[in-house]
């Protein structure tokens, strides 16, 4: 049996988890691209190319970086903002994991229980998760792969995500900055962002403010 590839969908009515298809998480110093274990350096360049080549590149920051639990979270948030500006790309927060009734506002938020709604509504073709609790990220990544054609990436602070098309592990401020550096390096070499023009919607704790 050839190795399963973790590629953008829509894959199936209920796609299998990548781990059940034999995909193994990277070890420290490694990443994976579509299930293939690669040196981290290779993944930085690939992730940067994907972000620059997308029409609607989007970062989904989760609660672990949206809220100032500690100084490191704040530093990560600053680094993520720099990454977004470098591409440029929009930020759509996953502020918490509560199922939203009757439905979410997919223009401004994403939820792990029905992330496909946000992907479809905004026509997001490349996204990157950062600061999302691992189990919730896996849930969302698999649902996105099942029902959308979005290329998913994860900047995970723990062991990484097989259900993303590309995943880093042990994410730190430095690693986020290295991804930003990879984006800037490609741009300096003449690679241009293909992103459509967009307006970053602003939110506070009560919701949309601009």
């Amino acid at each position: 049996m050839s190795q399963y590839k973790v590629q953008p969908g829509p894959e199936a009515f209920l796609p299998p988890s990548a781990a059940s298809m034999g995909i193994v998480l990277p070890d420290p110093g490694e990443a994976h691209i579509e299930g293939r274990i690669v040196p981290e350096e290779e993944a930085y360049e690939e992730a940067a190319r994907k972000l620059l080549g997308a029409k609607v590149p989007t970062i989904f920051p989760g609660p672990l970086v949206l809220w100032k639990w500690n100084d490191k979270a704040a530093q990560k948030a600053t680094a993520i903002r720099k990454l977004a500006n470098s591409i440029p790309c929009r930020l759509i927060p996953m502020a918490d994991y509560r199922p939203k009734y009757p439905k979410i506002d997919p223009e401004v938020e994403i939820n792990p229980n029905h992330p496909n709604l946000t992907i479809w509504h905004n026509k997001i073709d490349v996204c990157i998760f950062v600061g999302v609790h691992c189990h919730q990220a896996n849930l969302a990544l698999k649902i996105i792969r099942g029902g959308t054609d979005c290329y998913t990436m994860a900047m995970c602070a723990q062991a990484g995500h097989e259900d993303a098309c590309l995943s880093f592990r042990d994410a730190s401020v430095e690693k986020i900055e290295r991804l930003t550096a990879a984006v800037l390096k490609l741009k300096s070499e003449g690679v241009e962002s293909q992103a459509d023009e967009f307006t970053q919607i602003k939110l506070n704790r009560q919701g949309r403010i601009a």
Partner: protein
Amino acid sequence: MNKEVDLKGKKVKLSQHVKIGEKNKMNQTYTDVSDMFAAKGAPSFLTGSEIIRDAVKVASVDISVAYPITPQSEAAALIGELFAEGYLLDYFRGESEFAVMGQCAGAAFGGARVFTTTAGPGTLRAMENFPMWAGSRLPIQVVVTCRGVNSPLSIQPDTLEMAYLLETGMLVWHAETAQDLYDFILAGFMVSEQPDVHLPLANCCDGFFVTHTKDTVNKAPEDLCLPPYDPYKSPVPCMDMECPPVRMMRDPFIMKSNYISYATHASWQQEVKAAVERSRKHTIAILGGLIETENVDREILIVSSGTAVSQGREAIRLLEAEGIKVGLVKIKTIRPFPYEEILEATANAKHIFVPEFNMAGWMAREIKALIPNNERVYEGPRVAGGMTMPSEVIAEEIKKHLGL
């Protein structure tokens, strides 16, 4: 669906807790589990129940909940002594096995390392909690000292209850000896608490044979202990009552009649199964493999787990004396099931015998479902209800089946 995991030269993270090297209030030093195994001292001669106590003593367990009813192993009562000595933060008796497992969940939701024991009918009475633990990603460890579950009851080994645990989403390991049990308890916390795993572990052993009889065991020094549980590495927020999975238990979220709700629930279950698969890498790093093999190039193999392996090993010695060469596969982890390893180990076998201490023959079914040409599998011999399985019986059944 397993994939070859090459760990040679790789830096798989075992213990990475910041407290390694520091001392706890009992003057034990937080130590990486592999260093604890390397520091094992001279053999001790103890019962399995005493071994459970001694493993818990160095496992940095925060809370244990007990419901010891007769007949029982002494383990839960012995852990109570550890609490009296100050090794646990809390220890109390639940109102029933069901209540115990619910109370264990509460403690784990709060960020504690939790240990408990159960057996036989108690396992079944508590059963509803086990898939809840797994769905909630609570890395609780329960030692299941397997005995009969069906009337008339038995305190002797009968592994039927393991069949009920297979699809709960828990990790399920099966210790052959008291040494296995000691090692599995310590390794189990380290594997099940990995952020990418973070699942409960049913550490099974065959009641009475392992719990009540004495055996020699090499233990880690008692001035060492496992690094403490770090709830901040949980893949779900600690004590979060507003979000799935906890909300699923009190909220009609999953009962809403719409595709999204069902798809979420299904995906959640898949993620739990995925976490079981992820435990392979960590288990191999700590335990050295999911199976152990001896002479698997031979045409006749005995494949099993628990004390059936011990009896099989002795049967192999008896057969060897008659010039019949038989190999052995000992399965240590039932979930995750070692697919690739068993396929490889049985590739050349013409006859595969699966001795079991239960009437269902669930292990033989697992193996038959996995390997090609499964007519090679002979389901048995089997005993149940507390019967012993003399090695002579295994040897005779092999000879009889093969017409020797």
